[in-house]
């Protein structure tokens, strides 16, 4: 039934689209590839809109350098206001009206969940989605959807294993944002600690993005006797947490989500000396960490920013993210060898072999296969010394896949 419906719709579409489309490669002409994308340019998550802007600039650069295999990239990025109902509408617009070949890096866990089924039914690749949820590697049920960054859950699991090893009697407290991002850290800790979770995690405290401060939560956690704190908070609340923890004279072993480890927008606002001893796990290079000041990879990114995004906020790590994920997409298109049919694009996306990015840590390589839809699954622990993040231990991969 459903299949017939999709076929009918597809047929209707082809009829509408006319001769510009080759039957086997929708969204691709002799000179152009159309790529679709949804972003929260408006609404509560508009801070992430810079990712879309960075990607638009990236494809402009690619086009100026001659495109891919003689094809220019027509990158169509549209606003969904971080509202899943709007994402559904915009995804259908991109597919049915604009006739894109596939979707690249749509942002948001709920937004991607809302369009996942539609895209898979129509066999349209949903590539390198911009979310840290764990479920984007489900190649069995959703073979047309692939993730990119290591999941929050994997990261929390790394912390859990570190705690088990280094501090087996820890009294753990979790401070998390009350949404899918924060709750993934609870899930990851549960994965890593197993049946010890109930005993070791003595207090969970959440905050809402609409709360002005997290003071009450920090006081609650301290009062409960927590000596090991795992914080899953966005930069504003992370900086507040680091400062508050220090100011009330509390010195727990403190783990910070890698979402909030930017030197310029977390450590410095919080006070660099107040964060000393903070532990995180990372896969990318922070544009504001002095360690990467003269790094050739990051300089490549800086040159790109200087030329194509003049005046942009160089402290915003979202631009680094945009650059890295776009380079991955470019690699896939290059691997396609001129055959940009949806099948081949998906096949190549699931065929990355030891691909290295200038913006991720040395030693971390991107790998995918038909049974591995998590391109980046490695991270490395790091500790804040008051000036910079110092990597320690070896490159780790989470057990969750």
């Amino acid at each position: 039934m459903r299949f017939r419906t999709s076929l009918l719709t597809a047929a209707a579409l082809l009829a509408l689209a006319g001769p510009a489309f080759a039957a086997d490669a929708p969204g691709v002409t002799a000179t152009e590839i159309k790529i679709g994308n949804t972003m929260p340019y408006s609404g509560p998550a508009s801070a992430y809109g810079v990712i879309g802007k960075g990607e638009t600039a990236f494809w402009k650069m690619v086009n100026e350098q001659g495109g891919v295999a003689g094809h220019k990239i027509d990158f169509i990025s549209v606003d969904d206001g971080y509202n899943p109902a709007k994402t559904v509408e915009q995804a259908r617009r991109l597919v049915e009206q604009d006739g894109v070949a596939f979707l690249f890096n749509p942002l948001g866990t709920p937004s991607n969940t809302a369009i996942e089924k539609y895209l898979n039914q129509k066999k349209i690749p949903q590539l390198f989605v911009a979310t840290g949820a764990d479920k984007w590697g489900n190649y069995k049920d959703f073979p047309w959807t692939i993730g990119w960054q290591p999941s929050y859950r994997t990261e929390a699991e790394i912390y859990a294993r570190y705690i088990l090893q280094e501090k087996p009697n820890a009294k753990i407290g979790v401070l998390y944002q009350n949404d899918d991002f924060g709750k993934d850290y609870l899930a990851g800790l549960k994965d890593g600690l197993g049946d010890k979770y109930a005993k070791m995690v003595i207090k969970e405290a959440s905050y809402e993005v609409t709360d002005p401060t997290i003071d009450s939560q920090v006081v609650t956690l301290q009062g409960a006797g927590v000596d090991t704190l795992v914080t899953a908070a966005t930069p504003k609340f992370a900086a507040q947490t680091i400062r508050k923890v220090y100011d009330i004279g509390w010195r727990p072993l403190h783990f910070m989500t890698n979402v909030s480890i930017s030197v310029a927008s977390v450590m410095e606002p919080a006070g660099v000396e107040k964060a000393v001893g903070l532990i995180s796990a990372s896969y990318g290079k922070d544009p504001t960490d002095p360690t990467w000041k003269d790094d050739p990879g990051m300089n490549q990114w800086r040159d790109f920013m200087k030329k194509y995004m003049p005046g942009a906020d160089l402290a915003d790590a979202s631009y680094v993210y945009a650059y890295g994920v776009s380079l991955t997409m470019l690699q896939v298109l290059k691997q396609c060898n001129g055959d940009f049919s949806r099948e081949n694009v998906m096949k190549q996306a699931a065929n990355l072999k030891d691909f290295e990015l200038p913006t991720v840590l040395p030693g971390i390589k991107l790998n995918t296969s038909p049974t591995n839809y998590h391109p980046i699954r490695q991270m490395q622990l790091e500790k804040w010394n008051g000036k910079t993040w110092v990597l320690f231990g070896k490159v780790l991969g989470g057990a969750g896949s």
Partner: protein
Amino acid sequence: MATLDTSRPAAAALFAGLSLRAWKVIGLAAVLAAACVLPFTISSYQLLLANQVIVYAVALLGLNILTGYNGQFSLGHGAFYAIGAYCTAILLDKTGIPYWATIPLAGALCFVAGFLFGLPALRLEGHYLALATFALAVATPQLLKYKDFDFLTGGVQGIVISGPDTPGGLPLRSDQWLYFFCLLWTVPLFVLAWNLLRGRTGRALMAIRDHPLAASSMGIDLARYKSLTFGVSAMYTGIAGALGALLAQFVSPDSFDLFLSIRFLVGIVFGGLASMAGVFFGAIFIEFVPNLADLVSKAAPQAIYGIVLIVCMYLMPTGVMGLLRALGHKLGRLVAR
């Protein structure tokens, strides 16, 4: 289109031998006919947009009954939209109830929720009612993702559902069927509202809005009318939410944030308060202006939205219907001359 005020002298004016009323009936029939032909003339994506407009129109009608006709201010109708949507999604996800049967259940649930909320709200007016309803809009996403309700609501992950298939034998695509399904709900809901509002009940509601003291001294039971209005209003918006869930095939706490309630309010003000036809203009506004703003500027789409909103309010302080009514009166006077 559907608002009729036969007491007004202009309504009796004649245009080309037909009364205004007759013209309105003809217009209404034409619009209905157009609505039925529409799905066969536009693309599947455009049909989705049209369908969303219809769903929003029902939601706005609910809010307009409360705010426009009864004068009770609500900044929280997104909450009832959410309750309706989740009711349908949960029933489809957890039980074997067919999709069409979930709609009246969602409506009934929202009626009860609205009625219960309306009871304490009786004592609140103006800004205080705004705060109470705003609180409802803030609390709803929190409750939807609360961990003890996870087993029902799917927590922060939400619920993915399947849209309805065309019933056997009908030569329609599933999206065309969904459109007619929404229309089959929308038309009776509007007829019901029209019957409710044009008669005794409607006059009572407006009397309460315009002068509560005088209304109660005329023997109108304020408490009963106001809380029932809250219930009916919530029911309309809830049914819209249920239909909206079928349309998006997904619900999550993020779908129903504060801005949804604010957009509903903007919708009825733009369309025109206390007007049934106005809600369609309002629905068109809240559906399309964000897309328009996105086209103009990626850097600050909300600024464009805000500017469009303010300019529209400047040009039409009483909304689209206010403007049309004023034009209609002028025309009526010209014809009568």
